[in-house]
């Protein structure tokens, strides 16, 4: 309701303040330090995208990394072509590919690349969604199907070496030139570009969750069957949010490929997909903002702790997830909401509930 909206706006403002002013100031506007943070911010986008399908609608998409990977490959293909000049990308030569494959051609164009990185994942997500949700597949089966798709898609990318660079992925990329601006990923302005993308994604996500669309999605999460009897085409709602979520994941993938300067099949691995689920769960899957914060916090912790515990880090991540699942199933967000409620409860008087047989409407009764 309105109070929820005002909390979200306050939360977003605080978050924007920290990300856009606090963090750069903390690292004294050092481009190299901020580059690490740009990586976290791009991962925050894919986490908030999962919050839309998982937290809001109750559809656990374990294939989120596949659509993320598509975005990163779209961007990497464009940059690889730019890096290769008039010739073929180097790895194609190693694989005896003599002419540029048909699907690579359009990625010469930046406009096409940006659209493809957003729309191809959305279309693929939508296609899977149509088949699943028309057939009324729900619950754990959504997780299984999306996971199976992820594994199959990763295999396909690795197998098609001549097209995708196989296990090595796409490396040796050019710098992106956007409207004549050659992007230096170790610059403060690049950090602001990624931060701006995250803020835009969050504002979009918050708009969705506060619209009637978001309300119907939450109704579907609780009781899809009941929602159908109100006349809502549940399958269409689920398909649309799956598309949106996949498109955002693709967008995040494009930024990620920029930050790391390569695209690799590891972006589409099962462990990466599960990591997204953990970020989302730690932050709080019910709120897009909390899911973004979760991604940043977990990755920040990983960045700091993995220096100390090189192999043991995954164990820490696993324990973190167990703790969240067992003791705070709604994540940090849930803790905050409960704390806020407990604080507000105290001054309020404990009003007696209205018994069922009290007069309906005093005016009518008299």
């Amino acid at each position, binding site marked *: *309701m309105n109070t929820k909206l005002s909390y979200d706006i306050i939360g977003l403002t605080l978050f924007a303040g920290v990300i856009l002013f606090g963090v750069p100031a903390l690292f004294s506007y050092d481009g190299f330090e901020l580059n690490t943070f740009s990586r976290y911010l791009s991962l925050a986008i894919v986490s908030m995208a999962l919050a839309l399908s998982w937290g809001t609608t109750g559809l656990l998409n374990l294939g989120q990394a596949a659509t993320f990977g598509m975005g990163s490959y779209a961007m990497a293909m464009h940059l690889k072509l730019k890096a290769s000049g008039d010739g073929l990308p180097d790895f194609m030569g190693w694989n005896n590919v003599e002419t540029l494959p048909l699907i690579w051609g359009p990625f010469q164009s930046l406009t096409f690349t940006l659209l493809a990185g957003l729309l191809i994942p959305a279309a693929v997500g939508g296609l899977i969604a149509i088949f699943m949700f028309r057939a009324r597949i729900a619950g754990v089966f959504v997780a299984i199907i999306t996971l199976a798709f992820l594994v199959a898609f990763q295999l396909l990318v690795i197998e098609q070496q001549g097209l995708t660079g196989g296990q090595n992925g796409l490396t040796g990329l050019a710098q992106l030139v956007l409207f004549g601006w050659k992007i230096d990923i170790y610059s403060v302005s690049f950090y602001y570009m990624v931060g701006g993308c995250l803020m835009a994604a969050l504002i979009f996500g918050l708009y969705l969750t506060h619209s009637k669309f978001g309300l119907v999605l939450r*109704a579907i999460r609780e009781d899809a069957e009941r929602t159908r*009897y109100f006349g809502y085409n549940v399958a269409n709602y689920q398909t649309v949010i799956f598309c949106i979520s996949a498109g955002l994941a693709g967008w995040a993938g494009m930024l990620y490929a920029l930050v790391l300067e390569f695209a690799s099949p590891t972006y589409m691995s099962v462990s990466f997909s599960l990591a997204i689920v953990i970020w989302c769960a730690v932050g709080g899957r019910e709120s897009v903002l909390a899911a973004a914060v979760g991604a940043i916090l977990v990755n920040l912790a990983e960045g700091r702790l993995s220096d100390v515990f090189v192999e043991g880090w995954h164990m820490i991540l696993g324990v973190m997830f167990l703790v969240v699942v067992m003791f705070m199933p709604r994540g940090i967000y849930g803790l905050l909401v409960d704390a806020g409620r407990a604080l507000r409860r105290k001054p309020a008087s404990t009003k007696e509930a209205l018994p069922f047989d009290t007069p309906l409407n005093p005016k009518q009764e008299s």
Partner: protein
Amino acid sequence: MSQLQVRDLQVTFGGLRAVDGMDFDVAQGEILCLLGPNGAGKSTTLDLICGKTQPTGGSIRFQDTEISRMLEFQRARLGIGRKFQVPSVYKELTVAENLSVARSMKPGIWHALTHPAIRRSSKMQDILDLVGLQDKMGEPAGNLSHGETQWLEIAMLIAQDSRLILMDEPTAGMTIQETERTARIFRSLSANHTLIVVEHDMSFVRTVADRIIVMNQGSKLAEGTIQEIEANEAVKTAYLGH
């Protein structure tokens, strides 16, 4: 002109004929009660009308449209609402949000994307006043008492504003006073809505029913007013076994 026409309706579950050749009409604004022993096919008949179950034969026409092959949300859009036996409000949503979901005259995605989750309207306020939940608007429905949950469900049915409302044992678990109050609401509803009610409580049926259909083993045993039914020998046999 009848609003709903059911002709030779049949459904078979693994060899069991749950509904076997039902024929009946319901007129606009009528309250029809379905009676019958357990397993007579009353709830299944409602399921067939609202689309929860697909019929294996026969036809259902609602306002001159054949609906027996439609999906449930398509039937809901035509104006068929359903209240289930177990209270089915959205426990995690607030009272106001529950009502907003129920107000589904425009169930399309584009409309949903371009409108806020909750719009305060005078109609919404009237409904909340009617059921006495105006102070609980921001409360999650899961925090409501049993009685308040029942009122919320009735409020949602009113908000949905279906032309035909199907109710499965609406007074189950209610006290006598609650049942009487519910009966009064039903009578006021029937000005603009047609109701088909499955009910066991005879005093409730006496108060609300315009017409009664008694079902037995999936088909219609008797049909008529309450007096006609109470005098019917076949009904007595079905209920008492003699």
